[in-house]
Structure formats: structure tokens, C-alpha cells
């Protein structure tokens, strides 16, 4: 039982990591006033870019180190895609919801299309053998019973995600830049009156969100699947969106919610590993994060309020 708990914790940590990255991205985007509907698309593109570049790096003899450039290329790919969402919804002032869906559609179509072009018609990238993340044990901490081998002997992408949470919190709540970004999302008009370049700030918010969610997608490939196909990212971006809302648009809240929502995916995999867990009603666990988020939004459990200028294009000509 204790062993199963350790296993469960380890799996949960691994599955929560992509959610942490993407929901942090969501915080940056939505706090600046742009809806984070495209997180799924950024993750898809990040996963695709990481998988394809890792294959190339592996072939050119990078070995295990190939995972690192691939990881960051995943982030850059997500950022590149987020530029489209930013351009459409900030500069062209298109409907942010439609623009977000355009990005999701495009990410799915383009990534699978390019996989087929690059890998001679195959539906997935070649499976990586060396260019993936290995587990890093933290000295001393990894010797703690149960918690040690599961949380303190995990992938570097997970440790980085923990650090990113702290970094995002400090950046958004304890620097002038963070104040400006939150002002752009809370009251775009007032921020502009105070002399802030609202549109430029929103660009930064969206691009950062693309980068972070792209890292999330890359994490999935480099720690779990080892390749990219149409099913590598299926809904994680939306769970991350839910986690961000459940975490009340706050980095630490999004982090805790991601860990919590990672339990669902963790259990799903545990069921395949351990016989006694087969009686757990999987569908009920899978729908749990969404129902919980709805209840929070509806005010039945706690309270969640979105940034006030969220979803509204800022038009400098309109007072």
C-alpha cells in the first residue's frame, strides 16, 4: 500500500508537470487581459517541435543532452504560435475566443501534417531512445521514505517547473513589470491613462504564455511519451486552463491546482499498473477537475473572479 502510494505520487508529479507549465502560461496571458484558450494549441506545437528536434539531435550524436535544446525549442515553438494569437487578438482586435480556437485548430492540423511530411507519411515521430530526460535524485532529500523517491528523484523539467512557479510569483507580484501586466488585464483603460503601453504588455503576456505552455508540451514528450502523434496532447491544455481558474489566476494557486488535477491522470495510469485500483470509476475521476472548476466559478465552492478587462480588445482610439 505504501509502495503504491509512492508510485502514485511519482506518477502524479510527472503528469502534473506539463499542467504546471501550461497553467503558469495561462496566468501570464489572462492577467494581461488575453484569454488563454490557445494553451492546448501551444502545448501541441511545443510537443511537436520538441519531438522532431530531439530526433534530429539524437541522430547527430547529442545523446541524452539532446533533450535540453529540444525542451527549449518546444518553448520557442509555442511562443511562435502565440504570436499569431497575439497579432490577431491584440493588433487586429479579433474576437479572442475565435482567435484562440484558430490557434488550436492550426496547431493540431499543422503539427500532424508536418510530422507526415518530415517522417515520410508516418503518423508519429520516431520514438526517442536517448534524447529524453532522466530522473535526477536530489542528495539527502531523495532518501526520505515514500516522498523522496517519488518527488525528489524526478525529472529536471519538474524541478524547473517548481522554480518557474516561484519566479512567476515574484515577477508578477513583486516587480513593477508584474504590476503593469496585471494592470493591463484588470483595467486596460486606466493602465493606458497612466501611460502604460497596454498592447505591448499584452504581447509580452501572450508570448510568455506561449513559451511556458510550449515547455509543457515538450515535457510530455521528453518525460512520458517519447514521441509525438495526434494523441500526445489531448485536452491537457484545457485542464491547465481549468487549473489556472481553479487557482484563481495566481501562480501558486495554479501550481497547487495542477498538482491536484494531475491526480486524475496519475490514477488513470496507476489503474493500468496495479490490479486493486481497477475498481476506481475512471470516468468519474476524469470529469472531476472540470466539475470542480465549474462549481468554483459558480460560487458554490469558494469564489473565483477573472481579471476585469479579460477578453476585451484594447482600442487606443476608443475612450
Amino acid at each position, binding site marked *: 500500500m505504501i509502495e503504491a502510494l509512492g508510485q502514485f505520487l511519482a506518477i502524479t508529479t510527472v503528469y502534473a508537470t506539463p499542467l504546471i507549465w501550461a497553467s503558469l502560461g495561462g496566468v501570464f496571458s489572462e492577467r494581461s487581459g488575453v*484569454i488563454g*484558450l490557445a494553451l492546448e494549441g501551444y502545448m501541441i506545437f511545443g510537443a511537436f517541435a520538441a519531438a522532431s528536434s530531439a530526433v534530429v539531435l539524437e541522430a547527430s550524436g547529442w545523446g541524452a543532452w539532446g533533450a535540453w535544446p529540444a525542451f527549449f525549442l518546444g518553448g520557442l515553438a509555442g511562443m511562435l504560435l502565440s504570436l*499569431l494569437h497575439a497579432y*490577431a487578438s491584440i493588433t*487586429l482586435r*479579433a*474576437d479572442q*475566443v*475565435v*482567435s484562440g*480556437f*484558430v*490557434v488550436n*485548430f*492550426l496547431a*493540431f*492540423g*499543422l503539427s*500532424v*501534417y*508536418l510530422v*507526415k*511530411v518530415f517522417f515520410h*507519411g508516418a503518423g508519429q515521430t520516431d520514438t526517442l531512445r536517448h534524447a529524453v530526460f532522466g530522473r535526477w535524485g536530489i542528495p539527502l532529500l531523495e532518501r526520505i521514505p515514500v516522498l523522496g523517491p517519488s518527488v525528489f528523484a524526478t525529472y529536471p523539467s519538474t524541478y524547473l517547473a517548481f522554480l518557474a512557479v516561484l519566479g512567476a510569483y515574484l515577477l508578477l507580484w513583486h516587480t513593477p513589470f508584474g504590476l503593469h501586466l496585471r494592470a493591463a488585464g484588470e483595467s486596460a483603460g486606466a493602465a493606458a491613462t497612466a501611460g502604460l503601453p497596454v498592447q505591448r504588455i499584452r504581447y509580452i503576456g501572450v508570448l510568455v504564455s506561449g513559451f511556458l505552455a510550449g515547455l509543457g508540451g515538450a515535457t510530455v514528450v521528453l518525460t512520458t511519451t517519447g514521441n509525438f502523434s495526434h*494523441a500526445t496532447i*489531448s*485536452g491537457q491544455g*484545457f485542464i491547465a*486552463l*481549468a487549473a489556472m*481558474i481553479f487557482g484563481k489566476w495566481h501562480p501558486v494557486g495554479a501550481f497547487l491546482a495542477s498538482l491536484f488535477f494531475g491526480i486524475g491522470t496519475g490514477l488513470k495510469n496507476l489503474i493500468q499498473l496495479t490490479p486493486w485500483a481497477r475498481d476506481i*470509476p475512471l*470516468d*468519474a475521476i*476524469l*470529469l472531476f477537475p*472540470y*466539475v470542480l*472548476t*465549474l462549481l468554483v*466559478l*459558480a*460560487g458554490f465552492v469558494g469564489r473565483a473572479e*477573472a481579471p476585469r478587462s479579460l*477578453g476585451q480588445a484594447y482600442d487606443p482610439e476608443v475612450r
Partner: protein
Amino acid sequence: MVREFFVSLIALFLGLLVGAAVMLFGGYNPLEAYRALFWSVLTSPYQLGEMLRESTPLLLTGISVALAYRAGLFNIGAAGQMYLGGVAAAWVGIAWELPPVLHAGLAVTTAALAGALWGALAGYLKAWRGVHEVISTIMLNWTALYLGNGLIRAYLLDPNQRQRSHFVAASATLDSPTLASLFGQARLGYGFVLALLALVVYAVLLEWHTLGFALRASGLSPGAARYAGIPPGRSIVLAMGLAGAFAGVAGATEVLGVFHYMGIAAALPNAGFDGIAVALLGGNTAPGILLAGLFFGLLNYGAGSMQFVAGVPLEAVRIVVAAVLFFVAVRYVFERWVGVRRPAE
């Protein structure tokens, strides 16, 4: 109206152009690909029938999104409403025994009710709990997927297949031997007729019925609607409920008219999201939805021949859909070129 039609045509043309560029990048011949895509569908009655079959759910989800849009609401939830509609139709089709026409009618009605309930739930959350419908419908989509899968697993599962329900009774199907034989045994049935009927209902309801007036008024100006004695909360729930009903019927046409069973899915039906593209490209009017629905049906169905004849991966079509939607979303940029004027907000 005519100018808006041209704006949609421009969006469509630009979308196909983006697709062509992507094909060129991949080393394919876009002209050959598009010829295969558009032409092959018209070569035989069977192909045409299958294309109309592909369009059927798109027309219905297109209406679903458009109806909500006219009432000032964004229904992202058509996919989930459609999914639960499919589960409801399968339940009636499998668990009940009724005479032919009645059975199918009841199955479709139940599907509409299931979709309506799911849509109205989002409406309730918006009207009385202040939850934005875009977020609530996204959450309800995934809830619908897992709830539906759970229901299939618990009550409808064919134990020999494990990944899908039993077949529905023959009396519950929407098959039409006449239509099928007309189109070379394509899987075209009364589902398509239902979709066309739904377009008429949508047009009449929205343009000529007081209910439609109330919904449109709430969409154009909630304040004015309230002043005219139209309760805004009721309009929101009603609009989302009706939108959900049309999406629910889309699920029924797939289950009762095409597959005859409901499969356990890993993802929500694409048609639910394509409905957004159909509604926006079609300008949320019945004739527009008809044209856009047929176009996207053609695109989705023709993708197969495109891959077969020109070797271009199917997914190129998803890129075209995304690009068309992008150009529709930024349509005001080129609306200026053709001189469409927007009412002041």
C-alpha cells in the same frame, strides 16, 4: 448581405491559398490536391451522398453556434451537447422497443432534450451565477465526454466489443433506402433531411417568430431588451437550451443515421468545433450556414481523395479550416475594402 457574402468568399479564398502554401512547403502540388479534393466528390452519386452525410452534423452544429451567437452568446459547447445527444439517442434506440417511425422520432427528441439540458445548464450558470459561457461550455464539453463514456460503459456497452455500445434497433435508425439507392448506397438518410428542416426552423424562428425577436434583441442590446420587457436571464437559458437541442440532434444523426452505435471516444467530436467555423463563415444566417456547412463537409470528405490521389496528408484540410476561420475572425480588416458598414456599438 451581398457584400458580407463576398467577405466570406474572400476569407474562403485566402484560406485555400494558405492551404496551398502549406502544401507547396511540403513538396506537394496544390492544384492537383485541390482538383482531387473538389472534383472527385462530384464524380459519382456515392461520393456526393457521402459528402452530404459528412455535412449533416456540421449544418446542425452550425445552427447551434449561430443561434446562440445571434442571442449574444458564444456556444463553444456544441461538441459536448452533440456527444450527449448521441448517447441519449443510443439509449432510446437500444433500450426501448417501439414501432419504426415512432422509435426514431422519440430517439431524436430525446437527443434534442439531452443537448438542450446541457446547453441550458451553461445558460443557467451564465444568467444566475455569472459564469462566462465560453468557460462553462468548455468545462461542460469535457464533463459531457466523460459522463457520456461512463454512461455507455455502465448501461449500453456491447460486452463483445468493449469500446462501443450495442447496435440500435432497426426501428430507431434514420436510414432511408430511397435516399441511399439514389446516391449509390451512400450512408445518406433522414438525418440529412432533418438538418435541412432544422435550417428552415432556424430561419423561421429567428426571423419571423417573436421568440427569435426576443433572442436577437437580447443579443443586440441586453439593456434595451430588458426595457422592452424581455427578461434577460430567461433569454440566455432559452437561447443556450435551443442551441443545445440542435447540437443534440447532430449527435442523433450520427448514431441513428450513420454508425448505428455509440462508440466510447477519447476526444470530443470534431463536428462540434467545426460548427463554429460553419456559423461564422455563414454569417449566422440559414442560407449562409447551408453553404458553409456543405463547403466544410466537402472539405472534410474530399480530404480522403486528396490524400489518396495527390499524396497530401489529410491534415492539410484542418489547416485550411483554421485559416478560413482566422480570416473570418479578422474580417473587419477587409470589410473596409469592400465597404461593409457596421452599426455603431
